């Protein structure tokens, strides 16, 4: 039996994932409308989620935010959802952090991230993978 190391060549990898029911997002929009949108998503994200599959796209972005929170592995830290933004690089979703979360990511040694989103009729999901420098500051491993 072996216990695999938490880091390789001085680098650590973190993964976060989340799944969100499309219906839940639909219900939130119906109940709280713009307040829900403005509390959770950036203006750019709202703009990216126009048109067909709008709710599915919003749900996938919410899942991405939760996936990022899990990757931080600090459950007692405040997570302003709009400081985690999903942007687009051509067909690929990208992750952008701002404010206190960007500082925290720097402190944890985040060097690179990769994000994947998907959805079906009922659920949306996201997986985020983060590469961290091994010698960086605190944070759960």
């Amino acid at each position, binding site marked *: 039996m072996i216990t695999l190391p938490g880091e390789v060549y001085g680098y650590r990898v973190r993964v976060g994932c989340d799944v969100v029911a499309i219906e*839940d997002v639909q219900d*939130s929009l119906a109940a709280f409308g713009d307040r829900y949108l403005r509390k959770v998503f950036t203006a750019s994200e709202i703009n990216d989620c126009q048109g067909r599959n709008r709710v599915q796209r919003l749900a996938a972005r919410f899942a991405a935010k939760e996936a990022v929170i899990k990757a931080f592995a600090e*459950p007692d830290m405040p997570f302003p959802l709009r400081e985690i933004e999903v942007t687009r690089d051509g067909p690929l979703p990208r992750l952008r952090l701002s404010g206190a979360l960007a500082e925290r990511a720097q402190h944890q040694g985040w060097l690179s991230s990769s994000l994947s989103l998907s959805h079906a009729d009922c659920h949306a999901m996201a997986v985020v993978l983060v590469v961290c420098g091994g010698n960086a500051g605190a944070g759960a491993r």
Partner: protein
Amino acid sequence: MARLLANRFAKRQKCEVSVIQDQIREVLAAHGRMTVDPREVDDQADLYELGLTSHASVDVMLALEDEFDIEFPEEVLKKSTFASIHNIGQVVESLVKSLA
């Protein structure tokens, strides 16, 4: 006399906390999508264990803002805030008091 006043103050505070918790239970029942009736849940019970999701906690927060006419500042937007009725109550109480 001082002890009597202190007892009265403590009773009144307990009553206010209880009223706030009742309102929180109603909000959880309407928006929490939990697997149990939150009106029958202990105030220290782990709400995530009882089916509260991260997404539902956003709805609960928005509904609490409406119910108490408050706004949750970013520094309290953490998992532990919504982990129990007791925790939600403490945050709501402090936000309500800060407006008074």
